[in-house]
């Protein structure tokens, strides 16, 4: 097992910079996820760590060994990096049986012949496929192929495990169970792992830490809780599932809380600072709020910090109902549990309501576009 250090990693394809001056430290035994939309450079970063791409500049160390250093002209080929990798397309060799595929890394690492059957059996039983060892890999289902790929990555006990969107070829149900399995597997094996995905649920459930990437740069590094609750900027908030963004002016920053005046709302509200820089009085900021932290009440008995709004669309989602509100200059999305039994009635289009945001649900995620009168206030 080994820690991974990435310094100043840059990779270009022609004029396009896919990974831009990336710095990252991965602790020994950590499960780290690179999360981001397609084209954000996460897969390229992973492939640079694997040795499948040569970075244009920067350095990568695994343990104490320098794997690649553009400045020092060093490059350790992938087969010498002692890693295991699970590919999106599984990449199982169709001319070998399940056993042949799993035994391959051991043979390549010149393990004694006598040990190989035992280790293969162990790896296959870890993924629950020991009874299929003699099948041809093309005779397996997608989920089974994925497990073989996993066993192949694990079998030689590499010091580093790499996952390139391993679950994206599976159907939704299988993906959920494989996710749980991967999680418990990591707990048992404890190998340092780098996992690439664009699925926020996968990232949140599997990782010790998440790295959110966009356009070849890191936007935020943090635990799943930090990423989920305190997105550093608007991109992260948007990607991690915040539905509503509103513009506001900071009016008070006394004793740690930030009081903001959201454009077009009748009253000031209390917001939380994200993990970004702390705003000062008079700053224009963007706030994010999740749809499920807003409650709708009848206009009559709403509290003072309620926001008057009108329901413009209703969508029934099964266990939840989604409302689209027109609140001054903003459109707000609200999701509430579907009422059961004698619960209050559902709202319908055209209803006037009061929207109430939960305490601490408003998060400052960055400065808004500059407004002409902002300097006058500061």
């Amino acid at each position, binding site marked *: 097992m080994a820690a991974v250090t990435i310094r100043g990693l840059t990779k270009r394809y022609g004029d396009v910079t896919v990974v831009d001056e990336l710095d990252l430290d991965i602790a020994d035994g950590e499960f780290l996820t690179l999360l981001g939309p397609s084209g954000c450079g996460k897969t390229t970063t992973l492939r640079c760590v694997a*040795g*499948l791409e040569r970075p244009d500049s920067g350095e990568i160390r695994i343990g104490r060994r320098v794997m690649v250093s553009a400045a020092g002209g060093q490059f350790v080929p*992938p087969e010498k990096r002692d890693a295991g*990798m699970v590919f999106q397309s599984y990449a199982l060799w169709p001319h070998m049986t399940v056993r042949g595929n799993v035994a391959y890394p051991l043979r390549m690492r010149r393990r004694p012949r006598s040990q190989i059957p035992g280790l293969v059996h162990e790896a296959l039983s870890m993924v629950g496929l020991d009874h299929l060892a003699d099948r041809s890999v093309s005779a397996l289902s*997608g989920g089974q192929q994925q497990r073989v*790929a996993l066993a192949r990555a694990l079998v030689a006990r590499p010091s580093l495990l790499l996952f390139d969107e391993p679950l*994206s070829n599976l159907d939704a149900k299988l993906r959920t169970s494989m996710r749980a399995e991967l999680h418990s597997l990591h707990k048992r094996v404890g190998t340092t792992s780098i996992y690439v995905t664009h699925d926020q649920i996968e990232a949140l459930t599997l990782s010790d830490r998440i790295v959110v990437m966009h356009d070849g740069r890191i936007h935020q590094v943090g635990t799943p809780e930090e990423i989920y609750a305190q997105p550093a900027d608007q991109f992260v908030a948007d990607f991690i599932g915040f539905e509503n963004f509103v513009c506001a002016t900071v009016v008070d920053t006394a004793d740690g809380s930030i009081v903001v005046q959201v454009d077009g709302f009748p009253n000031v509200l209390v917001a939380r600072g994200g993990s970004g820089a702390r705003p000062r009085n008079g700053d224009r900021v963007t706030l994010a709020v999740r749809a499920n932290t807003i409650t709708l009440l009848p206009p009559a008995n709403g509290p003072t910090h309620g926001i008057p709004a009108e329901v413009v669309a209703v969508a029934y989602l099964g266990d939840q109902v989604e409302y689209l509100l027109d609140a001054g200059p903003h459109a707000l999305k609200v999701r509430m549990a579907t009422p059961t039994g004698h619960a209050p009635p559902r709202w319908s289009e055209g209803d006037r309501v009061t929207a109430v945001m939960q305490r601490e649900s408003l998060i400052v995620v960055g400065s808004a576009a500059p407004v002409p009168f902002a300097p006058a206030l500061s």
Partner: protein
Amino acid sequence: MPSLTRLRGRAGTAALLAFVGLLYVLPILMIVYGAFRTAAPGLPGEWSADGFLQAFSDPRTYSTLGNSLWLAVATGIGATALAVVFAWIVSRTDAGLRRMVTPLMVVVLAMPPLFFSLSWSLLGTPKFGLINQLLGAIGLPDTLLSVGGRWGTWFVLCLKICGLGYFILIGPFLAMDRRLEEASLIAGGGRLPTFLRINVPMMAPAVLGAFIINFIIGLIAFDVPLIIGRPSGFQVFATQIYAFVTNDTPPNYAAASALAMVFILAVVILVAIKRRLLDRRQFTTLSGKGARPEPWDIGRWRWLCNGFILAYAVLAVVLPCVQIVLGSLQPLFGVHRGYSLDNYRSLLADPTVVPALWNTAQLAFFGGLLAVAISLLLGVVGRHASVGLRRTLELSTWLPWAAHGIILGLALVWAFLTVPFLRPLFGTVWIVLIGLVIASTPLASRATDAALAQVGRELEESARVSGASALRTGIGIVTRLILPACLAAWVITAIQIAGNLEVPILLSLPTNETVAVMVYQLNARGETVQAAALFCLVLGAAALGALLLATGSALRRRWRRRGRGSAPPAAAAAPVSPAGFDLPAPELVAAATRNSKSRTDLLLGEE
């Protein structure tokens, strides 16, 4: 073409099968018949096994058998190795010239074997050939290179048929997912172990398939051994069959047929073995989402690959072309003074040449058209037919492979002289036309099938749902969509026909000789420069055809682009073509070979 549903009905199917049987199956049966007859075709004779006895008591048979086997194995290995290298360069490396390979291979595939044999017999002539003169000019002995005999035949044959092997291999090579190699690298295997343990076994079925096809071609090769090998005494199977018919007096048709039958049997057995061995092992189709064929950065090796491509282009196309054109302008072969068009003038003044040119042009034009039309008909019917009918159609149009070249000529002699109602056709140009159509059907159907496979079923189904009949759909949608591919197939088939020597050499009479036969005879008589000039005329016509095709597709694209800009309704009414239909002609052929669902698969076994 009646409606497809009715075609599937009994009458249509019966008519189609009878037509296919007459054209493709009957000649082969006639070879078997002929092997057991004592008399020449068309004469009353007895049933006997004398043909076999004569053929196999003749000591020449055994030496040619050995030579043919040697040539088949050596060409199989040589041409397949060349094809593997090219397919590998194109699919797995970033060598700059790799984009040149496919067009180059189209040219090599389209050029008739006669071109290679004639030009290399000139190139390799000591003292007078271009290469030897160049060697002499730099101070080396000008007799250093002599292309002839066993190795000369092997060399020229490899140059030529590597083109076919390339198109067989390039599909599977491109389909291979690079992740499979990367997974091996990560698992700890270096480049060499990865190549040996992953690439080689995965590509083995396709490579073995290509080997078997090259082996078959080597076994029955006619033009190249006849022109390059025979002058220095290298006789093979096909030239021996030819010799039994033309050199023995009286012509020994039974012995020739007996030899031919042995060959047909060998091919059938080879194909059967191949299907048994390889067809259950289908590797190349397995890949999940995210599979991309990407080339490897091969660093300095790139220059080696580029050099290899360049060397092949020079040897296979550039030097032969230069030599033939230069030779055609020389007063005497190898004499560099007094270049003139005299050879052309005297050729065109010859009363037998102009009719032969005209005859060949007609054969190429109509033969190519017929071959493409038949392939298209069978392809469209096969698309909608039951599995059994489709297999039968596929198998029968591939039978010309078993009865290749000279054997087909022999088979048609038997068929046309023995079957009563066909006899009047013997000696006319029709028998030559039929032979050439049959011989070029495999090539034509390769192109049309691949193009057909690119037309999505939905395009046809939506036409049917919109109210078009099967006939209208077949002509208005399917044929219309693949028209550019069909034109390209027509041009290539026509070039093949114009240069085909094997079929007309037995079937045509002096009154309806083709240019290819005339070129061969001129060359055999030592009138080398006239032969070169005559072949140059064929080459010129072929180049003109290719140029017309390229201009046509360029014009069409331009017209279409303008149509899209000014008149959107017209553009919208134009068929929605799947990707790949706007390609220029040579690339269409390449696109055609790219997919794996062509009739070739019957031999290659990727169904």
